[in-house]
């Protein structure tokens, strides 16, 4: 009988208001204004991933990120034997795919891939120039269209393996900040340590950068993680920053990685 009463007590326990503890949470900003040499670069619209635990707790993941290889935009499209006009169109405004800006009539006239897709669209969509141009990407070769995104996705999946990030957030283009909110802080703990990384290299000029940093988050104040690059031999505190030269992929000299 006493056992039954105890079970009933346990069942009732979660609905008792006294048992509802509000989870303490905190917020973290990743600031993407990075001083590289004398210039301040802005890392906008780049995704950062957040994991529970710090550098030590995520040792295996950190190793995987450090050892990962990812194709750069120029090498990817060069490897596809895209025309120099297509690659230049992407480069002109640092686009990763044809989705990043409007394809104008002038672009159609200039870029052979666009011209071919436009002609197909015109035929398919009732000889309507406006529809054909607006819908042009539907007739681009899939690899040219979203191949680079899929390649990045595959690289990311390979690095992550079974490990899932707790959250991800993108830097915006004005405040150049990625914000993580509602980050749980263990009951009774003052801080919670989180690992933040872009995982996929970010290309700035002729170098690519991967940040793997840890930061303590508390419930009292927003934590601000300012991305930095190593100054000579001086490492960045609580961060692993992987800086690599970007391979030069020009027509006829495309390297895979």
């Amino acid at each position, binding site marked *: 009988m006493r056992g039954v009463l105890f079970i009933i007590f346990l069942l009732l326990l979660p609905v008792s208001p006294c048992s509802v503890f509000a989870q303490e949470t905190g917020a973290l900003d990743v600031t993407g204004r990075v001083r590289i040499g004398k210039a301040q670069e802005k890392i906008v619209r780049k995704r950062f991933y957040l994991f529970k635990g710090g550098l030590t707790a995520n040792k295996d993941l950190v190793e995987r990120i450090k050892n990962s290889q990812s194709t750069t935009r120029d090498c990817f499209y060069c490897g596809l034997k895209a025309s120099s006009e297509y690659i230049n169109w992407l480069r002109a405004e640092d686009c990763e795919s044809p989705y990043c800006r409007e394809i104008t009539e002038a672009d159609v006239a200039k870029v052979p891939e666009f011209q071919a897709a436009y002609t197909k669209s015109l035929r398919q969509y009732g000889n309507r120039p406006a529809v054909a141009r607006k819908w042009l990407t539907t007739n681009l070769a*899939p690899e040219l269209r979203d191949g680079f995104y899929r390649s990045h996705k595959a690289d990311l999946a390979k690095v992550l393996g079974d490990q899932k990030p707790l959250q991800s957030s993108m830097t915006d283009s004005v405040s150049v900040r990625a914000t993580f909110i509602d980050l749980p802080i263990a009951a009774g703990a003052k801080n919670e340590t989180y690992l933040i990384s872009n995982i996929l290299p970010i290309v700035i000029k002729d170098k690519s950068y991967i940040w793997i940093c840890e930061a303590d988050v508390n419930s009292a104040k927003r934590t601000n993680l300012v991305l930095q690059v190593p100054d000579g031999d001086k490492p960045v505190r609580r961060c692993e920053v992987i800086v690599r030269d970007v391979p030069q992929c020009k027509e006829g000299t495309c390297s895979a990685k």
Partner: protein
Amino acid sequence: MQGGNLLSEMRRLLNIALLTLIAVIFAGHWAFDVDAQNRGRFSHSTAQHKKLNCSACHKIPTSNWASTSGFPDVQDYPGHASCVSCHRQDFFRGNQPAFCGVCHSVVGPRGKARFPFPHPTRNSDFSTIFPHNVHQDVIAEFAPPRDERPYAVAHFVMASFSPLRNDDPPPTFNNCAICHETVSKTPRHAVRISPGMKPLTDAAAETFEPKAGFFKDMPTGHAACFTCHYQGPKPTATDCAGCHGLTASTPKTGVVFKRYSIKFDHLQKEHSTRDCMTCHVRISQNADLKTLKDADVPFITCVQCHNDKISEEMGKRVESLTNNQAPFQCVYCHSTAVGRFPLPPSHEKR
């Protein structure tokens, strides 16, 4: 004696079996009648319909696309051939078969007119599947300094903004504006109130009315999606289930814009020059519209610019309660319909 008992028990069981059989036959007949009556209301959720591919009935594009949408679209009901293989008998049920009224506004052998497609007032069987995170990634680009370019990053110049109330041209955050444009007419709107909260007092008189520019709309048809997805990348136009998830039948009530802070103006200079993600901080990781309960602008993002004014009002609230006066109603962000409620934990914590 025992044999008599056995016989009586067998009779009893036989009676029960017979009654059950009669009940089943009757129920089946009744169900059939109900089903027949319901055939004036098409449901995608019946077991038989769920077995079919969408393309078994819907043709993409429909033959009327040029005259209706102006782009290859689904703008008409499936043809008779889609229905007849299973519903032949329903075509001939009575003089004006209810079945025909699913598509035809005039029911009868000569009635060709059909309702607009999709029917504007009938319940919807679908919710929309849209991963914001994937779209943010695909449209993202490298990062030249913003002040060196006339527009913000990730831009598809298909959408337009209404004129700003200042002289500067607005940046077009087109990765969002592809789908969310400033509305031209003030839409139906209401205040959003957290469930379970009780107001401290009656709302004071309120004269505030939001303007059209306060609101952004959202896609209601295929136009925004087909532009890229018509035949790739996936989900393509023929993969209806890639975007339309079957749900319980829900009435089309039209969109009502519900806001906690009805006074937020998207076109106000300091707001319109910010990237959408500066405030909609969670949008870049949202993979499912169903988990996006509202526009989702966490309070923390308001505080980063408006802390002084918010603190001032919160101080007034505390002071009024301490002095046993009528609770101060917060009106800097809210109308009094919301400003009369207790401070939520997000505000207390700021």
